[in-house]
């Protein structure tokens, strides 16, 4: 039976109303075809490309453009974007607020990107803070997070969290994490982000932001702990931490049916535990046997989890 026939059958049986059937038929026959996602993707790519071009142009041509022209242009973009957002935004609410216009979220993102380039340029040219240049990161992260909450903007929230990571010294690349001191910084960052996310959730302020906080926090903390097991000193301590955090991620993920956290926990814990065990094994046979047995155990565990809690109808 085709979808159209099935809809007609449901309508005849009274399972759906005539109006519902008509609306669904229009979708199935593509008489109503939404390009919402495609337009959003184009707008987002456009803003990112514009921001990247802005940064590149400032870096390459600051000498010919002149400091005043650059600072003024960037400031105009920032002011224009913020003025657009403040003039059109709905009053602040602690709950979820829909963007008032299609371009709203992206205009705010553009303003924030231009602000970042502006700050970078000011420090690059005038070296106001010199060794403490990273205070710019803290200030801009604070501004981005405030704007994200004010305008309920997840893109800017992510920008704020990544800028905060920059201030903490965390780089989202393996090289960064495997550098000794970076691990502790990443762990502190992950813990702070998780704490702030949970705290805001308890305060009932933008509760829908919690998952974004937890994704970032879980990855930063688990990656740091796993890298500590692989290349750190006091590896058993790192391993104990990894097992505890991974267990919490898995348990919370299963309970809340947020399986991304289950996968994070399993994956990072497997990497860390495998690194520790294989470093103590000798000979190819024992190492390969370990991988066969351990991976079978993980598959069995995940299969059981998928059977009990992860079933899709």
């Amino acid at each position, binding site marked *: 039976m085709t979808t159209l026939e099935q809809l007609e059958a449901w309508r005849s049986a009274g399972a759906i109303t005539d109006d519902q059937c008509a609306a669904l038929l229009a979708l199935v026959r593509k008489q109503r075809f939404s390009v919402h996602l495609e337009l959003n993707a184009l707008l987002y790519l456009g803003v990112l490309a514009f921001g990247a071009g802005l940064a590149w142009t400032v870096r390459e041509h600051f000498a010919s453009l002149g*400091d005043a022209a650059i600072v003024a242009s960037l400031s105009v973009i920032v002011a224009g974007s913020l003025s657009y957002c403040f003039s059109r935004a709905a009053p602040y609410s602690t709950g979820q607020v829909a963007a008032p216009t*299609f371009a709203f979220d992206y205009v705010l993102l553009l303003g924030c990107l231009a602000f970042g380039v502006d700050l970078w340029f000011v420090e690059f040219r005038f070296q106001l803070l010199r060794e403490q240049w990273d205070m710019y990161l803290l200030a801009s992260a604070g501004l981005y997070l405030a704007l994200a909450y004010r305008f309920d903007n997840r893109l800017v929230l992510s920008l704020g969290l990544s800028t905060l990571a920059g201030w903490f010294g965390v780089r989202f690349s393996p090289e960064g994490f495997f550098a000794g001191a970076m691990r502790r910084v990443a762990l502190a960052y992950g813990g702070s982000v998780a704490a702030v996310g949970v705290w805001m959730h308890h305060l009932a302020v933008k509760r829908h932001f919690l998952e974004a906080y937890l994704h970032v926090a879980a990855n930063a903390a688990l990656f740091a702990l796993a890298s500590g097991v692989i290349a750190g000193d006091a590896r058993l301590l790192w391993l104990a931490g990894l097992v505890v955090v991974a267990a919490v991620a898995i348990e919370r993920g299963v309970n809340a049916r947020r399986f991304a956290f289950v996968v994070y926990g399993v994956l990072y814990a497997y990497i860390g535990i495998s690194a520790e065990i294989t470093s103590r094994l000798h000979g190819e046979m024992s190492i390969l046997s370990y991988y066969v047995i351990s*991976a079978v155990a993980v598959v069995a565990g995940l299969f059981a989890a998928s059977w009990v809690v992860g079933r899709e109808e």
Partner: protein
Amino acid sequence: MRRYSAEVERKIRLQAQVRDWTRAGLLRADQGAALRAELRTDLRRTNDLLRAALALFTAIVVAAAVFLMSTAFEIRDEVTTGAVCLIAAVACVALAEYLVGAFQLYRHGIEEALAAAAVVLVGVGVADVSHASPFLVWSRVWLIVASIAACAAYVRFGFLYAAIGAVVFAAFTAFQFQLAEPVSRTIAAAVFGAAFLIARTARIGHGDEFPGDEYATLQAAACAGTYLVLNVHISDAIPWIGLGVPSVPAWFYWGTYAATWLIPAAALATAIREKDRALLTVSIALALCTLVTNKPYLGMTRQSWDPMILGALLAGGALALRRWLDAGPSGQRGGFTAARILARDRDILSALATASVAWHARAHEPPPQQPPSSDFAGGRSGGAGGGATY
């Protein structure tokens, strides 16, 4: 031949649609639950993330088991290694069949990884057993055998990525014959083109109903493949693939330049006419690649403001299109609407926003320690530039 009946495949797709319609408020929750119950099958599916994790760890099991066999029996020669791979491939297929039969698995990750492993292993096995050497011949045999095996995996289990893999393997065989670059690329494009025509013919026959939806994806993938092998500057648009710009004759160079404009344009026109989402997504992505590779094709130097122009073009185009669609009767034109209908779109955008932490993080580089002298400090701005150096 297929492990799952067409009726079951249709039910699964309709179930997903009913879920989307319920979340979009087009059906009441109780209606949605009742209709989904009516569409329930005996097959067991799982969450996509658990599915991916299951596939990953199953692949680890297979790879470690094959290496363990080779190590345990001290297998060194090519033929015996090939035989082990062939035995392992048969075991993988048998286990996948057993799991699907015994546990009624459907897109559960485990059976998918086993089928994918079988494709890789049968290719290695045949190439090793047939003493294919040097490496170019070995890879040629591997690609041909893997292509056939992947095709079989699609026919048997309906794994769409296996069908795409089969076409990609077949097309890449053309690069294993040390032919001139234009010949290799033309043959590869012809393979993708043939796949496109086959998929398109089948798609037109079935429409959007299963298996027409699979053919639509295949058609879009084949279109992307044709474009990617013809665009000799593709590494300018996708730097991480690490390809250089090949040396090709002028006729081929300018022919491919024309193709980089014609393929996205034709695909976009077809996608709009047929309201084909897969082809629409691919054609937009290819059009972006064309815009990015246009200057390198024409031998023009890239300017720092090029991304700004591209960005303004994309954002301006999206906004103009949105306004134009909104201004139509009932906010739509020709059936196209800019309004969000399904909640799934919102979920995708939220996930994208969260994931954007990864690429935003790359922007926080410290400013260089020794800046060039400032206009203000040097007096270029005002004071007739008295203190500036040149």
